[in-house]
């Protein structure tokens, strides 16, 4: 009965949390010699999974094509160097990205609440 919105939102939130972890790691290591900034490639994976959500299964025996979870691809930016100690964490970029990521996460959680609210309307028959 529940639509797939929940699932999409859950995956997006999981990845936002993972992103937050990577940002924290980058910020904690902003002064570590030879440390290279990490980042997550995810948006392309999400759009791919959204495409798949459009497919329908006509029988209960059909295998659902929705993945239970997505393994975000962790990448390391190797080729650049910002300081003399071969560290390439740009603290300003990292902070901005982290705040953006947090706001995105909060938006997603509010979207989930809105989804639940809609079911509440049906269940309680209130308008």
């Amino acid at each position, binding site marked *: 009965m529940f639509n797939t919105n929940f699932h999409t939102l859950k995956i997006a939130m999981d990845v936002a949390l993972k992103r937050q972890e990577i940002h*924290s790691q980058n910020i904690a290591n902003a*002064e570590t010699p030879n440390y290279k900034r990490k980042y997550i490639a995810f948006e392309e994976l999400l759009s791919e999974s959204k495409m798949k959500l459009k497919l329908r299964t006509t029988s209960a025996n059909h295998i659902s094509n929705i993945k239970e979870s997505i393994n975000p691809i962790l990448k390391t930016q190797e080729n650049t160097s910002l300081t003399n100690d071969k560290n390439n964490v740009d603290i300003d970029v990292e902070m901005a990205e982290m705040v953006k990521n947090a706001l995105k*996460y909060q938006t997603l959680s509010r979207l989930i609440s809105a989804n639940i609210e809609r079911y509440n309307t049906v269940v309680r028959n209130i308008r």
Partner: protein
Amino acid sequence: MNEFNIMTIAATGMSAQRLRIDVITNNLANSETTRTKNGEPYRRKVPVFQELVRNIKGRVENGGVIVKKIYEDQSPFRIVYDPTHPDADENGYVKLPNVNVVREMVDMINAQRAYEANVTAFNTTKAMINSALQIGR
């Protein structure tokens, strides 16, 4: 999920930077110390950071940062002409620690800023978890 691991990562960053400020303060306090246990003037100390990655059941997990070692700076001592100093040699020259006060101050501001960045990371994560707790309320 690993929400709280993120906060631990930020905490390792904070404690690393605090230790760095500790070391810098020690350097500043000893910037004129001519006598140490091993008989020579004080040597400037530098903490060296390393990325901490934990390996839990074959899965690599980010652990933040760790202070690997505190090195002693081997650069030459400052030599100042001061014949009245008790530790002066026969020509009147005194060996002073290789601590450059201005450099230490700059490092200290740097460490402070890095500490604040970690605090911000911690607070942002806290706001995120709080918003997740508000789901369905």
